[in-house]
C-alpha cells in the first residue's frame, strides 16, 4: 500500500478517481461550479507549491501571473479576434517570458526580502490591470468571449467541471514528474541548503528560475481557465489579497505535497461558500478555522495527517 502510494503516478490517479467519484455526488449545477473552482485554484496552488514547498522560495505575487492568464483570454479575443485557446497559450507564453525576465534579479533575494519583492511585482501587475481601463475595463472588469471548440459552444457547470478536473490531473501529473526528475532533486537540495547544493554542483540560480517560470505558467493557465468558466474577469483576481490566499492554500494543505495543494484549495474555496449562511460571522469563523488548523496540523493538513497515520501504524 505504502509502496503503491509513493509511485509517481499515484497522486494524479488519486485525483482523477476523486474527480470521477465526486461527479456522482453532485446534487446541482451550483456544486459542479464550486468543484470546478476548487480544481482551478488547486492547479494554481500546485504550481506555487512547487516553488514554495519544494524549492523553498516564497512568492507573494502569484496572483499577478494568474491575472495575466485571465486577462489574456479576455483582451486578446476582444481586441484581436484571437481564438480563446490561442489567447490562453499566448498568456502562458507571455507569463513565462515575464517570469523569466523578473525571476533572475528577484530570485537572488532570500526569505522575507523575496516575499516583499514578489509582493511589489504582483502589485505592479494588478495596478496596471486596474488602471489601464481602455484595454482591461478597469476596476469593473470585462466580459470574456465564450469558448467554442470545433463549432461546439462550451458551457454548463458540469462541462467545466470535467475540463478543469482534467487540467488539474494533467497539472498534478506534470508536477509529480518534475519532482521526481533531476531538477526536482536539485530543488529539494537547494531548499535544505543553497551553499551545499552549489557545492554539489547544482546551478542554483538556474534551478530556481526554472521552477519560478513553471509555477508562473501554472498560475497563468489557472487564470485563463477561471476567466473562461466565469465569462468575466475582474482585477481582484490579480490583487495581492488573492496572492496571499494562494500562499495560505499552499501552507494550509501542506508545503511540498501535491495532494495537500488540493486540500488547501478545497478548504479555502468551499469554506466561504458554506459560511455565507453565517453572514456577519463569516470572517471570524474563517479566521478561527485557519488558526486552529495551523496550530493543530502545523506541517499542513496532508503531511500532518500522513505522519499521524504512519506513526500509528508503526506502533
Amino acid at each position, binding site marked *: 500500500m505504502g509502496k503503491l502510494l509513493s509511485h509517481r503516478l499515484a497522486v494524479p490517479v488519486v485525483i482523477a478517481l476523486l474527480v470521477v467519484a465526486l461527479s456522482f455526488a453532485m446534487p446541482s449545477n451550483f456544486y459542479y461550479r464550486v468543484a470546478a473552482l476548487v480544481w482551478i485554484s488547486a492547479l494554481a496552488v500546485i504550481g506555487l507549491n512547487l516553488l514554495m514547498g519544494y524549492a523553498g522560495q516564497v512568492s507573494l505575487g502569484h496572483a499577478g501571473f494568474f491575472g495575466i492568464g485571465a486577462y489574456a483570454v479576455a483582451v486578446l479575443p476582444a481586441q484581436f479576434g484571437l481564438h480563446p485557446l490561442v489567447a490562453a497559450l499566448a498568456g502562458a507564453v507571455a507569463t513565462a517570458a515575464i517570469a523569466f525576465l523578473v525571476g533572475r534579479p528577484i530570485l537572488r533575494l532570500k526569505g522575507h526580502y523575496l516575499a516583499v519583492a514578489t509582493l*511589489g511585482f504582483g502589485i505592479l501587475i494588478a495596478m496596471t490591470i486596474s488602471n489601464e481601463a481602455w484595454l482591461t475595463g478597469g476596476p469593473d472588469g470585462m466580459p470574456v468571449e465564450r469558448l467554442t471548440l470545433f463549432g461546439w459552444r462550451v458551457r454548463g457547470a458540469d462541462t467545466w467541471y470535467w475540463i478543469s478536473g482534467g487540467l488539474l490531473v494533467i497539472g498534478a501529473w506534470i508536477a509529480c514528474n518534475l519532482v521526481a526528475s533531476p531538477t526536482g532533486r536539485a530543488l529539494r537540495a537547494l531548499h535544505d541548503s543553497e551553499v551545499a547544493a552549489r557545492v554539489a554542483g547544482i546551478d542554483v540560480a538556474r534551478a530556481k528560475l526554472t521552477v519560478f517560470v513553471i509555477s508562473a505558467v501554472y498560475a497563468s493557465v489557472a487564470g485563463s481557465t477561471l476567466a473562461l468558466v466565469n465569462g468575466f474577469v475582474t482585477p481582484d483576481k490579480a490583487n495581492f489579497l488573492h496572492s496571499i490566499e494562494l500562499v495560505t492554500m499552499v501552507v494550509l494543505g501542506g508545503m511540498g505535497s501535491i495532494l495537500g495543494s488540493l486540500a488547501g484549495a478545497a478548504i479555502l474555496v468551499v469554506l466561504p461558500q458554506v459560511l455565507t449562511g453565517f453572514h456577519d460571522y463569516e470572517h471570524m469563523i474563517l*479566521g478561527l*478555522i485557519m488558526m486552529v488548523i495551523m496550530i493543530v496540523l502545523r506541517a499542513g493538513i496532508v503531511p500532518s495527517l500522513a505522519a499521524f497515520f504512519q506513526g500509528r501504524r508503526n506502533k
Partner: protein
Amino acid sequence: MPELLQFCVSGLTVGAVYALVALGFTIIYNASDVVNFAQGEFVMIGGMTTVFATAAGVPLPLAVIGAILVAMVVGLLLHRLAIEPARGASPVTLIIITIGASIFLRGLAQVVFDKQFHSLPAFSGDTPIRFGGAAILPQSFWVLGGAAVIVVLLWGFFNRTLIGKAVLATAANRLAARLVGINTSFVMGLSFVMSAAIGAIAGILVTPITLTSYDVGMLLALKGFAAAMLGGMGNPLGAVVGGLAVGLLEALGAGYISSTYKDAIAFIVILVVLFALPGGLFGKASVERV
C-alpha cells in the same frame, strides 16, 4: 517650492504611520521570529475603538487610553492563544496563523463596530498652519510628534531599562537568554503587547486625517512590512527610515508622476533598492551557515 514642501509634509505624515507599523513588525520579529501580519489590525482597533468610545460620550483622552488598552489586551491574547500554542512551528506556519488572526479580527470588528468609514475630530482644530507657502494640518504635527516620542521612548526602553535589555538579549540569542534566567515567553508576550500599543497609537493619531474602517489593517500591514524590509528586517532604525521613505515616495510619486500609480512607484523604488542591497538599507549581509 511650496508644492514640494506640501508633498513632503503629507508624505512624512503617512510615512510616520508606516514607520510605527514597521516598528511593530520589528519588535515582534526580533523577539520571536514571527512576521505578524495582524499588525495592521492593531492600527484599526486603535482608531475604531476611539471613534466608538467618543461617540458613546467618553471624553477623548479617556477613549484614547481605553483604545490603547484594548489593543494591548488583543495583542496579549494573540500571543497567548495563537502564537504560544504553535511554538516551534515553521515561520511560514506562524505567518499563516497571523493572517488567520487578522481575518478573525477584521470579522470581529465588523460585528462589534460596523462596516462604515469613520473619522475623529482633529485634536487641535482643522485650521491649516501656513508655513513656507504650504498649508499643514495641525493633526500632522500630532502624528509626527507622536511617532517621534514613541521612537525616543523605545530607544530609552531598550537601552536604559533592564527589561528592555532582556528583550534585546532574547532577540540576539534566545537560548542564551534563557540560560541567564530571562523569561523568554514573557519577553515575547511583552513584545506583542508593545507592538499592539504602538499600532493603536498610530491608528488613533492618523484617523482624523485618513479615516478608519474595519478593513484598513491589511494594506497598512503590507506597507509596514515593505517599509521594514526596505530598512532591513529586524533593524528599528531601518524600520523608521523605511516607513518615512515609503510615505515620502508615495506622496512625491502621486504629486509629480501619477496619482493612480502611487503605490507602484513606492514598490518600484523598493525593488531597485533590494536589487542593489539585498539586505535592505541598514541590513547586514547575511551569511549562510553550512
